[in-house]
């Protein structure tokens, strides 16, 4: 098999655009899954079972089934009642999926913040909620950075699944180009490199964050 990368050059702008869409989705999903995961974790740790159990179940559903299936379900399965735009389906699916994983991490790190921290804050006169907000959550966030970083790196690659419901991200762009040019391997190699570059930047970012917060642990 001989390689010919000229078609890749023709479609490079399309690929870059796809990469941009993927990263944009990733950004929204990162925000949603971290904020949402934190909320779920706080509720599961501090609020009674009646409230937290249904929430955990909902989250659990997203943890146990493949992402692709979830996207199809939201997109086509629910299509008989409600039409959610593809990109929103992608964001919701990915968002809930990773919200579940992040919540798991946050629950562990919240529990790892020592009871002494809670008591010290209460003894200063902070209320329950203020203590969670000012003392527990910031410390849990800092401790979560390593695992959170791993999850987000996985998540960026998972944006590729969104091509299945027609979101024009990187893999989608490459599929289109491949179907026109019939040069699959050239495109696969190029998008693998693109993902890897993004991955390297994310790893650097994670290492930087860990360094910046190391003395706050």
């Amino acid at each position, binding site marked *: 098999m001989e390689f010919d990368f000229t078609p890749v050059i023709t479609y490079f702008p399309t690929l870059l655009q796809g990469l941009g869409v993927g990263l944009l989705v990733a950004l929204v999903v990162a925000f949603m899954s971290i904020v949402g995961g934190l909320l779920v974790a706080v509720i599961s740790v501090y609020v009674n079972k009646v409230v937290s159990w249904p929430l955990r179940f909902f989250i659990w559903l997203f943890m*146990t089934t493949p992402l692709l299936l979830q996207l199809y379900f939201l997109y086509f399965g629910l299509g008989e009642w409600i039409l959610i735009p593809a990109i929103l389906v992608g964001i919701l699916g990915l968002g809930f999926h990773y919200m579940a994983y992040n919540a798991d991490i946050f629950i562990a790190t919240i529990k790892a913040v020592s009871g002494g921290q809670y008591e010290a804050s209460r003894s200063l006169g902070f209320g329950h909620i203020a203590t969670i907000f000012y003392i527990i959550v910031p410390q849990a966030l800092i401790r979560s950075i390593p695992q959170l970083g791993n999850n987000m790196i996985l998540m960026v690659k998972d944006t590729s699944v969104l091509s299945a419901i027609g979101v024009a991200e990187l893999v989608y762009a490459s599929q289109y180009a491949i179907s026109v040019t019939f040069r699959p391997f050239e495109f696969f190699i190029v998008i693998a490199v693109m993902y890897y570059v993004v991955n390297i930047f994310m790893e650097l970012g994670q290492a930087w964050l860990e360094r910046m917060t190391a003395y706050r642990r």
Partner: protein
Amino acid sequence: MDFNLMVEISPLLIKAAWITIDISVRSLFFGFFVACGLVFLQSFRFAPIRWFARGYISVIRGTPYFVQLLLVFYGGPSIGFRLDPITCGVFVGAFNIGAYMSEAIRGSIESVDSGQAEAARSLGFGRAQTLVSIVLPQAAALMIRSVGVLAIVVVKNSSLVSIISVVELTYQAQRLIGSTYKPLEIFTLTALIYIIIVYAVMGIIELAYRRAMRYTTL
């Protein structure tokens, strides 16, 4: 909901589920050895061997799984590396999850307080003995937990193996939707099967976890 259809096609989905299970179990099994190998390589004093292991882990974790599948399955034959689809799914799956698993194993070993190893060494235990008698028993519980999470990832990732023409659960579901035009019924059924599989995996993890706790008390 068309329940007749659901009953009619469920044997097909269950058959496909077996392929999902088969690929997942074998990927995990071989992946574990890949992971141990990677952990071992990273303990070498000779730096290039460590770099090789780090680089491998970085590239595998940094590129999408389905691209790895496509490159090995469809690109492989042109360099004389030809595997049948399921074997290829297991092969790529094992080498993929091995990279993640090696990190989980390393992390759980490192989580054991270094004072434990020092205490053992000060009693005269050698490196290997310290690892086996002191560190691993204490790391086992955490290791089972983190490897267990990866087991679930493997089951779910197996849906991507369809791209190399393996008719596993998700692809079978997609094909059946193609001929029946009944997405809701088929997705519900498929999701249910996945939930059962994953639930079983979680049960096994829990069992192993309890076992490990018992073993650690010798």
